[in-house]
């Protein structure tokens, strides 16, 4: 029984949150990796573009709430996301046309594009803060829990409760659907294949008649979808605050590089690698050991490898170790 309790404890405090957080990171990381693979620069505006999409999701959510539309047990935000996606894609294409296109046609070095993306980061950040303000906002409505901790305890008779938040399940479900569609698109459709070809070897792709404008446009469209959904899911699960989104850029980058930048599947797994290691290393295992060890051996301290303050530092350290030993990432990405 104690053993079961221990497992439920880990499931509740490590597995579920890490899975949800990992999915959110994974979406962002695929966004980074796609931009890197096809447009060939590190996009420092990632976090803020996600905030941009989330902002519109929230605005539409408020609008729908004000006119009385809701999805019942599901959050209204799900209804708002498609509209937000359209606006985000529009914004991204606009930015691309007026900012990135010039450097792409001039074949500027990637560093210059990264610098330019910092300018875009400043502007996007300003727009988000001017429109919706810097405050912390929660916009989840509908049923909060699928299983509440108390109900679970009653059902199973265990000491530990397992609470499954609907936002977590929603995140995981949406991520699986979205990512599998994306991989199907990249691997099976003609457009997806042309994108991969363009990413692999630009000149060869151009020779074989692939239209670069189309590839770039589709990349931004996919990026818009990923950014908005990833951002909105993060906001639903936790809360929306522009500053947090900017900071999330860092673990997202870490995830993309750990997985091998330019490789969408690597980025997807990288998100989970980062999320799980962050939570594994900063969780206090005292209760866990209390369950599995005999009473005489119970630990006195918290049995926490690192304090939770170092959550971010964990993912960055992993990134640095990966860069040192496998500069191409765990799953071979582009050569650095």
């Amino acid at each position: 029984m104690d053993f079961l309790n221990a497992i439920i404890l880990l499931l509740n405090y490590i597995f579920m949150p890490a899975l949800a957080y990992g999915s959110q990171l994974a979406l962002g990381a695929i966004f980074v990796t796609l931009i890197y693979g096809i447009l060939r620069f590190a996009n420092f505006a990632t976090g803020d573009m996600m905030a941009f999409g989330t902002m519109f999701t929230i605005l539409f959510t408020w609008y729908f709430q004000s006119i009385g539309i809701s999805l019942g047990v599901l959050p209204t935000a799900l209804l708002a996301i498609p509209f937000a996606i359209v606006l985000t894609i529009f914004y991204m294409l606009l930015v691309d046309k007026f900012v990135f296109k010039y450097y792409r046609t001039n074949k500027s070095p990637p560093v210059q594009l990264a610098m330019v993306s910092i300018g875009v980061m400043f502007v996007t950040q300003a727009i988000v803060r001017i429109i919706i303000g810097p405050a912390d906002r929660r916009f989840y409505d509908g049923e909060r829990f699928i299983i509440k901790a108390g109900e679970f305890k009653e059902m199973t008779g265990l000491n530990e409760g397992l609470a499954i938040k609907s936002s977590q399940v929603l995140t995981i479900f949406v991520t699986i659907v979205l990512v599998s569609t994306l991989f199907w698109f990249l691997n099976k459709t003609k457009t997806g294949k042309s994108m991969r070809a363009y990413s692999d070897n630009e000149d060869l792709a151009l020779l074989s008649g692939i239209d670069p404008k189309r590839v770039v446009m589709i990349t931004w469209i996919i990026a818009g979808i990923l950014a908005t959904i990833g951002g909105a899911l993060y906001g639903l699960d936790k809360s929306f605050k522009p500053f947090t989104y900017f900071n999330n850029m860092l673990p997202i980058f870490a995830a993309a590089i750990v997985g091998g930048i330019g490789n969408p599947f690597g980025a997807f797994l990288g998100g989970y690698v980062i999320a799980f290691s962050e939570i594994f290393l900063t969780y206090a295992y005292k209760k866990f050991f209390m369950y599995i060890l005999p009473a005489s051996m119970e630990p006195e301290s918290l049995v926490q490898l690192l304090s939770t303050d170092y959550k971010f530092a964990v993912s960055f350290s992993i990134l640095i170790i990966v860069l040192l030993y496998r500069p191409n990432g765990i799953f071979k990405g582009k050569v650095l």
Partner: protein
Amino acid sequence: MRKYLNVILAYTIMLGLIIFVGIFQSWNVALSIFNMCLISAVMTMGANIQWGYAGLINFGLMGYAALGGLAAVLISVEPVQEAWVAGGFSILMALWLIIAMIFIVRFILKHFQKSKFRTYGIALIIISGIIIIKVTTQSSIEAIENVNPATTGFLGGLGLPIIFSWIVGAFFAAGLAFIVGKVALGLRADYLAIATLLISEIVIAIIKHEDWLTRGVKNVIGLKRPAPYEVELQTKEWFVNLVARFNSSKLDVISSISDKQAALNQLVIEGSSVFVKLCYSGLFLIVVVILLIFTQKALYSPWGRMMRAIRDNEEAANAMGKNVVKQHLLIFILGSAIVGLAGAMLVTQDGLFTPGSYQPMRYTFLIWVMVIVGGSGNNFGAILGGFVVWFLWIEAAPIALFLINIFTSGLDDAHVLKVHLIESIPYFRYLMMGIGLLLIMRYRPKGILPEKIEIK
């Protein structure tokens, strides 16, 4: 003379703007902008050495600046005796353990062949070392943090004049840069950017959460100053006389003696804070001028030529027998040391150390905007960038307010849109910075004062 015309013109306009602020807002504001401009200029010079001279991209400026600030605390704060008694010994022991660990790892790296076994061995040593340190120091760290937590709760510093911390801060930053450089300099440019950014976040995380060393988010306030204190100045006779002489024309107009005394008192209070700021300006100016002389000398020296050669074509420079890796590391350390110096200067000026205030937006990206806007590779450009961008950063709010009032002049004062826009004025500075950066990068990619290399 004509070659330098644009430099002189740009600097005259910049100084004119600051004087304009002095006349129309107040000299206090103008001088605090000027001081921050000088500090920004030092940081920009550090970044410029790395990016402009050698093409190394360092997005970790924040970490070095914070280390410089930490140096200011560790040098100037009086040591906390009780805390040292409570846990100083085991902290020192942990320090020895870390040093021993480094030597063991170095020994293994030197004397064993590269193999999986060696890698795992090193990992094992590091992990077990960390665990041992954590277990042995935990109780003493708690003891230190419990010593009078409201005011101290940390080990304190050395109690030396804070000016020394400028040098120590530079050394701290150089030490960090050495480690980062060893780890990350082999990476391609944009990876280097990301890696340095993340490393600086780790540094900030440590500074924020190791309360025994830095008091963490509880901040260290009331650091000693290299300049006189306003309150003391106001009681000094020579200072009052000085203020009276400066404002004699104003004071002579006032006839009644009591009014005159009141006016003088007011002037002395204002004057004292201006005087203190002037002292800082003097100190900072000395640093900027010395750095400028050195960096200019370096730029036109054979070493500077070599750096540019490495920047423009690494392979060719390598083929000519230049040690690219070593030079990159050297310049990375030099640039970071200057940023560390600036960080110490900043904390000296503020008189407080607030680890929570170190944000990449303010300490990394803003400095980069300064470098790009000013002109990378040109020291005068870098300094000008620091001035222009900081000036705009501060004056963005009044400018934005002015513009909003013009564009919404047709609207009612209580109109929702107008109220909302006026509430979000602080964020217009981001917009301005972003658009400024994008415009400069598009239409003047070499900055306001572009790099000019003459062959003599």
